[in-house]
């Protein structure tokens, strides 16, 4: 019971924060951490079942660009635009996922194929530069120059903080629901042995498609929200190989097998980037990724469960010893 009290206390602090604290810069960092935590959680929903996708940068790009383009060209409210963007991402996920899963493309093949997918989405955004602005990026138009629920645009950081917090919480709930559902058992069986799972009556293709579609839709949603918050998107910040690898990196560093792992990963990576940026200014360009790269290699070799995963495993082991 005490555990539940702690959780509710933590939730109360997180929700109450913007009502007493108004410094925009730390709030901005918090919003970024929450949005990216949701992205990394979306990735880990499928990533932890051995479906290592390097194509999620593509889904995120689709989410961000479809929403922004619909808003600017068709004046479609994001309330409709975001679901449409998610549908588009789901369509792409099905198009790539079906042949992959139907024909047993797994492991390296799957990773390389999805890697190519995120590169292709970036190529398409760049190629259609007349519409999307290409590599120069794209800005959704301000709605009457202010905040608006209709346009999902808010000028103050406090509102965005609460929105991002709600989205982050929803992401954790989705992950929790997957954990408690039949889907998890089916996917765990598939990870162990695809043939045995199929023989035991698990429809391998369908189960894999389910989790892929869920993950792609969540990632596209996050891309759209990110675009609405930053009011600027460019192919390099929301799509492409480096964004995909960044997702994998943060999730692995935090720990993909524990629910809060991706959140810890997001906090570590964003704080690291910001610290480097503030202490070294423009001289820091490149250094954050340099540190990421080294850390990723070290983590995979020495701490494959991730930071939070290892800590929690350590606590469990210590408890088992004392009990």
């Amino acid at each position, binding site marked *: 019971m005490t555990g539940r009290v702690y959780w509710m206390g933590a939730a109360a602090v997180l929700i109450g924060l913007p009502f007493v604290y108004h410094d925009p810069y730390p709030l901005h960092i918090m919003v970024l951490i929450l949005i990216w935590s949701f992205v990394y959680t979306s990735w880990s929903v499928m990533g932890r079942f051995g479906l290592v996708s390097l194509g999620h940068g593509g889904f995120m790009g689709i989410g961000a660009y479809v929403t922004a383009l619909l808003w600017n060209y068709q004046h479609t409210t994001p309330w409709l635009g975001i679901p449409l963007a998610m549908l588009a991402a789901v369509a792409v996920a099905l198009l*790539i996922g079906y042949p992959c899963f139907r024909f047993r493309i797994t492991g390296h*093949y799957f*990773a*390389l194929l999805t890697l190519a997918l995120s*590169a292709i989405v970036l190529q398409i955004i760049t190629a259609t530069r007349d519409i999307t602005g290409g590599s120069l990026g794209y800005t959704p138009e301000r709605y009457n120059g202010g905040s608006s629920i209709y346009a999902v645009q808010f000028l103050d950081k406090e509102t965005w903080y609460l929105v991002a917090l709600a989205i982050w919480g929803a992401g954790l709930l989705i992950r929790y629901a997957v954990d408690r559902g039949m889907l998890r058992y089916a996917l765990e069986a598939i990870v162990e042995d695809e043939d045995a799972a199929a023989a035991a009556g698990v429809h391998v293709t369908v189960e894999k498609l389910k989790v892929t579609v869920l993950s792609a839709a969540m990632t596209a949603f996050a891309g759209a929200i990110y675009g609405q918050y930053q009011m600027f998107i460019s192919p390099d910040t929301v799509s492409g190989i480096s964004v995909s690898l960044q997702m994998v990196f943060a999730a692995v560093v935090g720990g993909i097998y524990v629910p809060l792992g991706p959140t810890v990963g997001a906090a570590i990576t964003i704080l690291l980037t910001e610290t480097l940026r503030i202490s070294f200014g423009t001289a820091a360009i*490149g250094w954050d990724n340099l540190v990421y790269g*080294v850390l990723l290699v070290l983590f995979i*070799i020495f701490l494959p469960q991730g930071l939070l995963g290892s800590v929690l495993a350590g606590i469990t082991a210590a408890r088992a010893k004392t009990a």
Partner: protein
Amino acid sequence: MFGIFDVYLLEAVINGILLGGVFALLALGLNLVFGVIDVVWICYAELIMLGMYGMYFLYVAYHVPFVLAALISIAGVGALGGLLHVLVIQPLLGTAPINQLLATGGVLFFLQSAATVMFGIDFRNLGIRLPVLELSGMYISYARLLAFAAALIGMVALYLFLARSYTGAAIRAVAQDRQIMPLMGVDTRRIYITTSLIAGGLAGLAACLLVLQYDVQPFVGLTFAPITFLICVLGGLGDMIGGFVAAFLFAEIISVAGLYLDLEWGYVFAFGFFVVLMFFRPQGLLARRR
């Protein structure tokens, strides 16, 4: 017989063949590593990028003759390949395959940003402008012709090495069965390192050829890495002949589509073609149906 459009088309087809030679070389190194060690180097194109920087600095800053600079670059990138294996792949050999792939993803991040930190993001080129060959109305660049020829020579040399030499036989044997060969007295550790050195050398060779056609910058790898991965998957990972065929297929699509539309659309078409082919040949172009 040839109308004006036919000449352009023929030129695109020929350029496609020349491009295919370079693609085939790129895919060959990756396929070699995958076939023998069962690992994918996601950072393969970044090794090439470093090789291109090596060429740039040797040739432009230190005025080393081109051929000597090329040899130094090939040796240097080869050594990097060996280093990559010893530092990153070797500690991970026993773990889940996907970990090895992700670790080389970390190396990709590292190499890209190391290049950014060391060399900045300026576009650099050797300043060599090779003449263009005119052949009955078609224009074919010597740089591409040279790249094609060198890529073919490199591939034939590798083939002879694998087919004729003792070490080559050992490498092929390990590729066939990783478990049994150690029992037959083959030192797999040495075979793996040798393979990594060769694959690195192939990346170095590719770097020397690509530096004649592309400007060097830290992210240049991203321009040809995705297509190389597609070629390897379409050809069947580890299947060198399949990769060879796939390389020419893709190069033709990109080159011919690039004639009518932008180059980016060439890549998009190649990807679409790839997705369609996956329905028919999921295990690779030349794989036997199971």
